[in-house]
């Protein structure tokens, strides 16, 4: 078995203790929620924290609550709890669907939403043991100087691989970040940046506290669809994760739409959808959106060795996500 390097473990029980610890240890500290990403990464020696701060015993970080206009999810809520939550099944079924596609059952029971949204970016050249990376000659993101995907010494394009982010961005979710110095709220898409080295804006000392998912406006129907490309029907990270959301009226006229692709590069990719407003959601529109998306995506060799096939899958999975959204209409009826 791979072993971890030594570190000091902390088990705080209050949020104040967490922020104090984060403040005290800064960049030498690492948060561990479910640990399903942290532990393998530590075993691969991708991080060498001196302090690991466990969130498992912290009060008040966990749970799903309903407000008049939104649903709030605490950061340590497990992926499994999200997938099976009744409130979310009613108000954000696409999110439940995305959550149910994360990893496998055991990992969903350990893994949390906060951990999923803060998941480290992934790459075939990076998520490997120290020995393997040493034989490779390392890479820019860790211990090396060159990116083997972009073939430069400047840019890392490791893939953002979290399935829930795909759908939450479509739902215009917001995140609360907290530090000793205070709280800030960002829309989820602005939480991410296009840098594979570290693809979010969390500063040392900061913690993702909760996620706000707006409810649908009662005057429209919000149709949410998710589709995921993976080799196996469980466990595997996405090679492509696609989310769509269409706000439609009774005649299926689109009032508002969102489309997001994940696992392509470091930042989830938002597809422009203004042009869909006013169009009817039907097979032709779906095909149009699929073609439009296809023309705007360039998969890399970061997580799959056949970018041409992956590009073709962009079209197919965009269609499937849309069809899943349409199917919700029938499910409602």
């Amino acid at each position: 078995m791979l072993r971890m390097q030594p570190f000091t473990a902390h088990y705080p029980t209050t949020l104040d203790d967490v922020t104090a610890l984060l403040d005290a240890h800064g960049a030498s500290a690492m948060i561990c929620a479910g640990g399903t990403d942290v532990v393998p990464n530590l075993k691969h020696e991708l991080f060498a924290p001196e302090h690991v701060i466990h969130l498992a015993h912290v009060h008040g970080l966990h749970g799903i609550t309903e407000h008049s206009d939104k649903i709030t999810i605490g950061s340590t809520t497990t992926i499994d709890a999200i997938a099976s939550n009744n409130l979310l099944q009613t108000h954000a079924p696409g999110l439940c669907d995305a959550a149910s596609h994360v990893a496998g059952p055991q990992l969903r029971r350990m893994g949390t939403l906060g951990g999923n949204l803060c998941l480290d970016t992934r790459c075939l050249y990076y998520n490997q043991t120290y020995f393997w990376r040493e034989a490779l000659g390392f890479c820019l993101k860790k211990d090396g100087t060159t990116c083997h995907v972009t073939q430069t010494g400047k840019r890392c394009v490791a893939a953002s691989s979290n399935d829930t982010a795909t759908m939450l961005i479509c739902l215009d979710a917001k995140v609360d970040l907290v530090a000793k110095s205070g709280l800030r709220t960002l829309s989820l898409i602005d939480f991410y940046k296009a840098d594979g080295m570290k693809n979010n804006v969390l500063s040392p000392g900061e913690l993702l506290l909760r996620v706000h998912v707006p409810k649908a406006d009662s005057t429209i129907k919000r149709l949410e669809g998710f589709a995921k490309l993976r080799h196996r029907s469980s466990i595997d990270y996405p090679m492509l994760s696609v989310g769509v959301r269409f706000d439609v009226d009774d005649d299926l006229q689109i009032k508002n739409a969102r489309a997001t692709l994940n696992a392509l590069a470091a930042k989830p990719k938002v597809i422009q959808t203004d042009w869909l407003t006013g169009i009817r959601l039907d097979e032709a529109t779906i095909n149009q959106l699929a073609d439009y998306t296809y023309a705007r995506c360039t998969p890399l060799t970061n997580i799959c060795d056949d970018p041409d096939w992956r590009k073709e899958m962009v079209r197919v999975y965009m269609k499937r996500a849309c069809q899943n959204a349409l199917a919700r209409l029938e499910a409602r009826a």
Partner: protein
Amino acid sequence: MTSEHGVGKRQRKIDGLDKATGRTQYADDIALPGMLHAKIKRSTRAHAHILSIDCTKALAIPGVYAVVTGEEMPVKYGVIPWTKDEYPLCVSKVRYIGDAVAAVAAIDEETANQALKAIHVVYEDLPAVFNPGENPDSKVNEKAKVDNITKHVALTFGDVDQALQDSDVVVDNTFVFSNTTHTPIEPHCAIGDYNARGMLTVTSSTQVPHYLHRALAEVLELPENHIRVIQPAVGGAFGGKSEPFDLEFIVAKLSMKTGRPVKCLYTREEVFYAHRGRHPMRMHFRCGASKDGRIKAVKSKIDIDGGAYASFGMITAFYAGQLLTGPVGFDSYAFDATRYYTNKPACGPKRGHGSVQPRFALEVHLDMIAEKLGLDPIELRKRNAVPEGSVTVNGMQVGSLGLAECLDAVANASEWYARKGKLGFGRGLGVASSMYISGTNYPVYPNEMPQCAVQVKVDRSGRVTLFCGASDIGQGSNSVLAYIACEELGVELDDVCVVTSDTDLTPVDLGAYSSRVTLMMGIAAKEACREIRMKVEVASEIPLGPPFSKGERQQAFRAAEAKFGALCATGNYRTTPRGGDYKGGTIGASPAYSCTAHIADVSVDIDTGFIKVNKIWVAHDCGKAINPILAEGQIEGSTYMGAAEVNLEEMVYGDDEVRRGMLVGPSLLDYRIPTSMDTPPIQAMIVEKPDDNGPYGAKEAGEGPLHSTIPAIANAIYDAVGIRLFELPFSPNKVLRALQEKERAH
């Protein structure tokens, strides 16, 4: 012939409860007082001279007890006596990324890891060889006499070229089988314990304790009678633990150096480097048939990518040809197979050693011939069935062989005749068949001694103990011993104790490979039990066996002990000469041959290229199922493993500049074994055509039922969407491209 509570009964395994409740001790569960932990420094170069190894910094780390390098064990080993070509730790050069260079024993694994990083190795790169035949001037392994060839075999039976010319239809294609590995869930683990009396005990998760015993003596230069090898419960092997590995010598040597027990547990990555999995093969096949559906000729040329060491490779080159001549027979046959050394982890025997690859090619060709002749593929196979009790074109003596019964079983269960070709575009059915050995008549090293022996001892209490060197690797051979004791002595399962695979306690068995254990151990066990039974029956004048109350039985045992002394007996299995009368004709010679047929129901997603196996029906003739549950388990497990090789599992090596020769993703995340969600429903059916050479008629069930899974799925894909795929695995990108090409061609 079979009783209520012995042979033929559906019953539990004797070790099932302990495994299910977590009581079973595997090698890594063992902790000895004062035990140290070993880690192995591995090569980051594919092919290089070792200029120097500096261990001084490592030795200076507190908690590090010893370091060992190749010079300290400069004796080569190898499971086949003619191809000993590897050292426990590389001497002077490394041959693949992951090759073992040095090892450390330390107080714990963390300290050992730290020490590995402190060992400084200086390499001088050599031109590397990544594909068979490439770069012949750069010698991967000195054992190769010509170029980088481990073994070349060319055998011809009859006038194949003439027969091909005379054929009415000829099919000619090149097939590629990629690299797959065993992935036992238990990683290799070994503990060495050298005591003050000069006695070495090695406990290892091996499937060949006897071969390990011999190799330890040779490499460590110790007398064999100063070595004891113990194989505890093994968590899967599938051929991946069927020869000695670096760690077994390393823990022994480090224990000799430190005077403490030393354990080494591979990481998952190291299991991938140890490999010995399925050989990649590029196979050119040419097959001819007459109008009436008679297979007249089969001719193949096969290039085998062996990796850095020989392993069983010499045999692999033979098996690639020798094991193909049944259950569908042909009039003439020629094969020409060459195994090459390359700078990659060594390939070896994976479930269905050597023959799974060409079986894929041949069975797809049979499908193509059937189509060209307008014949049902099941009918084609039946017309060419090797008759029972006959000799194949290459001289293999076949006993029972239930080809027609297996084909009928899968055809009926799948409603083949009603559904084949009628499932619409995108879904189809495919059939294939195969035959496999139940052990080989020749031991790996030539000797006159039995291949297997069993001792039985009966206690006055009524308890029966069987001793045997055979390796239970999860397949249930320990339970088979117990069932035979129940059958022969009328005792109950809970009255039987089984002691196996400990060279101090048990008579030799050669190991769990070549599907030999049930047949050979079964005969030895039966013989030993029969002797006891005779004594008991003579002494007590009651015939043993049920119905027989516990009290009566104990009385009978006591009467026998009073008359004959302690009740002990031995049984042996010896092989007789068999096979073809030509050089190499003994390879592939088996006491008995099993037979399998598969039908697969497959859907193809034409937008993505993903294939989905909806169901597999498999019928296997194992002669006699000693316990049908275990036989079905083997049939299902084999089929699962074969199906995995169709579209998911592949050891991918980098072909870009930076990853040349590197295994891309040596982990269970990147090497994708199917989850339960990816596993089709499998209907396993047992066909029993008893063979005179097997115990109670039994033949093998552990490897044969893998073979025809793969071509059955390939043939079903053709039925579904009309594309022939010749290169495994059928990953979605390849399937999609083939579909697009077909579209363009129209």
